[in-house]
C-alpha cells in the first residue's frame, strides 16, 4: 500500500518537502553566516516602505523595474543632498560628543552622587541600591564601547549600504513572484490558508513598519526643531538618536532622552535648561501618544497596551534590545497565524 492516493499528491508532497528543506537551509545560513541577518531585515523594512510607492508608479503604466530604478535615483539624490548639508555636521557632532562623553558622564554622575549622598541618610534603601556606582560602571562601559566600536560600526555600515539596496531591488521586483512560488509548492489542502496567511502577515507587517518609522521620524523632527530653538549642542545627532530609540517601545524614549538631558546639563549647568530639554522630549512623546498612535498605530495592530508591555519584557529577556524591537511584529505574525488556523480549523468545524 502506498502512502499517496495519487500521482499529484506524491508530486506535491515532494515539492513541499523540497520547500521545507530550502527554508531550513536558508534559516540556517542566515543565522550562522555573520552579517547576513541585518541586511536582510533592513531590506525587508525598505521593501515594505517602498512597495506602495512602486505600486503607485506601476499604476501609471511605468514598468516595475524602471519604477524601482527611478525611486533609487530620486532617493540617491535626496541622500546626496542631505549628506552634503548634514553629513559633516553630523560627523563633527558625533566626534565631538565622542570626546566629550566621558566628561559629560563624569559630571552627571558626580551630581547624581551628591543627590544620592544627601538623601541616602534619610532614605536607607537608596544606599542599598547604590545607583551612582552602577551608573558609573555602565557609563564607563558605554563611553569605552563608543570609542572602540566606531570603526566596526562604520565597516558594517558600508556593507549595509551595498547589500540593502541590492536585496531590496530584487524583493521589490520579484516579491510577488517569490510569494507565488512558495504558494505553488504548498499542498492543495493548505493552499488557501497559506495564501490568506501570507496576505494577512504582509498587510500587518507593511502597516506596522510604515507606522513605526513615521512615529520615529515625527519624534525625531519635533526633538530636532525643539533642541535647535533651545540652542542645545549636537541637536541633529541627539534628534536622530531619539528618533531611532523611539523604535524601542516604552523604554526607548527614556533612553533616547538621556543624552540630550546630559548634554543640556553639561554645557549650561542650568536646571531650567534641563527642564526645557525634558519638555521638548516630552512634547515629542505627547505628539506621538496623542496623534500618531491613535490615528495610525492602533488601527494597524489591535493589541492591548498591557500585552505590549509583557511582550517587550519577554523580548528583552530573550534577545535584548533587538528582542524588544522584534517582540510586537513577531507577535503580530503569530497572531495572524493563530487567526488563520482558528478560523479554518476550529470555526469551520
Amino acid at each position: 500500500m502506498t502512502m499517496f492516493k495519487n500521482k499529484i499528491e506524491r508530486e506535491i508532497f515532494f515539492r513541499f518537502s523540497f520547500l521545507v528543506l530550502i527554508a531550513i537551509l536558508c534559516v540556517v545560513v542566515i543565522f550562522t553566516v555573520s552579517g547576513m541577518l541585518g541586511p536582510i531585515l533592513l531590506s525587508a523594512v525598505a521593501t515594505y516602505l517602498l512597495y506602495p510607492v512602486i505600486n503607485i508608479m506601476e499604476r501609471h503604466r511605468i514598468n516595475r523595474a524602471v519604477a524601482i530604478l527611478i525611486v533609487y535615483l530620486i532617493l540617491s539624490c535626496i541622500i546626496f543632498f542631505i549628506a552634503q548639508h548634514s553629513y559633516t555636521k553630523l560627523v563633527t557632532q558625533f566626534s565631538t560628543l565622542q570626546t566629550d562623553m566621558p566628561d559629560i558622564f563624569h559630571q552627571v554622575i558626580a551630581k547624581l552622587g551628591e543627590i544620592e549622598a544627601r538623601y541616602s541618610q534619610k532614605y536607607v534603601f537608596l544606599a542599598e541600591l547604590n545607583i551612582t556606582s552602577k551608573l558609573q560602571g555602565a557609563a564607563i562601559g558605554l563611553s569605552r564601547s563608543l570609542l572602540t566600536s566606531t570603526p566596526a560600526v562604520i565597516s558594517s555600515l558600508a556593507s549595509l549600504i551595498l547589500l540593502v539596496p541590492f536585496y531590496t531591488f530584487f524583493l521589490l521586483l520579484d516579491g510577488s513572484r517569490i510569494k507565488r512560488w512558495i504558494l505553488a509548492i504548498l499542498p492543495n489542502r493548505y493552499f488557501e490558508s497559506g495564501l490568506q496567511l501570507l496576505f494577512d502577515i504582509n498587510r500587518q507587517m507593511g502597516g506596522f513598519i510604515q507606522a513605526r518609522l513615521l512615529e520615529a521620524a515625527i519624534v525625531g523632527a519635533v526633538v530636532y526643531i525643539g533642541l535647535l530653538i533651545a540652542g542645545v549642542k549636537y541637536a541633529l545627532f541627539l534628534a536622530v538618536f531619539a528618533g531611532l530609540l523611539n523604535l524601542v517601545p516604552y523604554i526607548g524614549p527614556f533612553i533616547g532622552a538621556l543624552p540630550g538631558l546630559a548634554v543640556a546639563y553639561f554645557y549650561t549647568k542650568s536646571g531650567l535648561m534641563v527642564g526645557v530639554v525634558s519638555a521638548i522630549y516630552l512634547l515629542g512623546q505627547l505628539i506621538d501618544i496623542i496623534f500618531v498612535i491613535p490615528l495610525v498605530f492602533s488601527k494597524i495592530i489591535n493589541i492591548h497596551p498591557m500585552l505590549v508591555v509583557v511582550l517587550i519584557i519577554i523580548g528583552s529577556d530573550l534577545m535584548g534590545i533587538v528582542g524588544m524591537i522584534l517582540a510586537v511584529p513577531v507577535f503580530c505574525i503569530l497572531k495572524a497565524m493563530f487567526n488563520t488556523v482558528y478560523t479554518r480549523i476550529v470555526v469551520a468545524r
Partner: protein
Amino acid sequence: MVLSLWSSGMFKKRDDECIIRDALRRNVLFESLTQRQLSIVNKIVHIRKYGVGEYVFNQHQPGAGMYIIVKGKIGIQTEKLVIDEETEKEKKDTVLLTTLEENDFFGELALVDDKSLRSASAKVLEPATLIGFFKPDLLEIMDTQPVIGMKIAFKIAQILGQRLVETNEELARQGFVK
C-alpha cells in the same frame, strides 16, 4: 528528486502560461480584458492540480477566492442532516448539487464577501487543473492596475446580479415569491 521536480513541470513556466492565458481568455470574468491586460492577470493567478477525490475546498470553511476549471470535473456538494431510517438518529448526508466541467468557474462569491464561509464543498471527480484567482490577487491588481481591477469587479457584480435574478426566478417558480 530535483530531476523529478523538473520533469513534473515545476519549472515549465511557459507551458503553464499558455494554458492559463487560453483559459482566462475564454472565461466570462476576463472576457473584456485586452491582450496586454490578460497577460498581466496571467502573472498573478495560480495554477493548481488536483487528484480524484481531493477537495478543492470544504463547506463552512472561509473562502479566499474563485477557481476556473482548465481540465477535469468538479462536483459541488453540500452536507445536510437526515434521519437514518434504521437507527432513527440524525446523520450527515452528502448531496451533489451540480457537476462542473472545463471553462466553468466556482467560488466567485468569496472574491467580494469579507467573511464568507463556503456554502458547499468542491470535490474533484476527474483529475483537474484549476486556475485560482483570489481576493488578495484582486486587491493587488486593483492597487497596481485599477483599470483591469475595475473591469473584473464590474464583471463579478454582473455575475452576482445575474445569480440573484436566477435565484428569485427559482423561488418564484417554487411558490416562495409571488
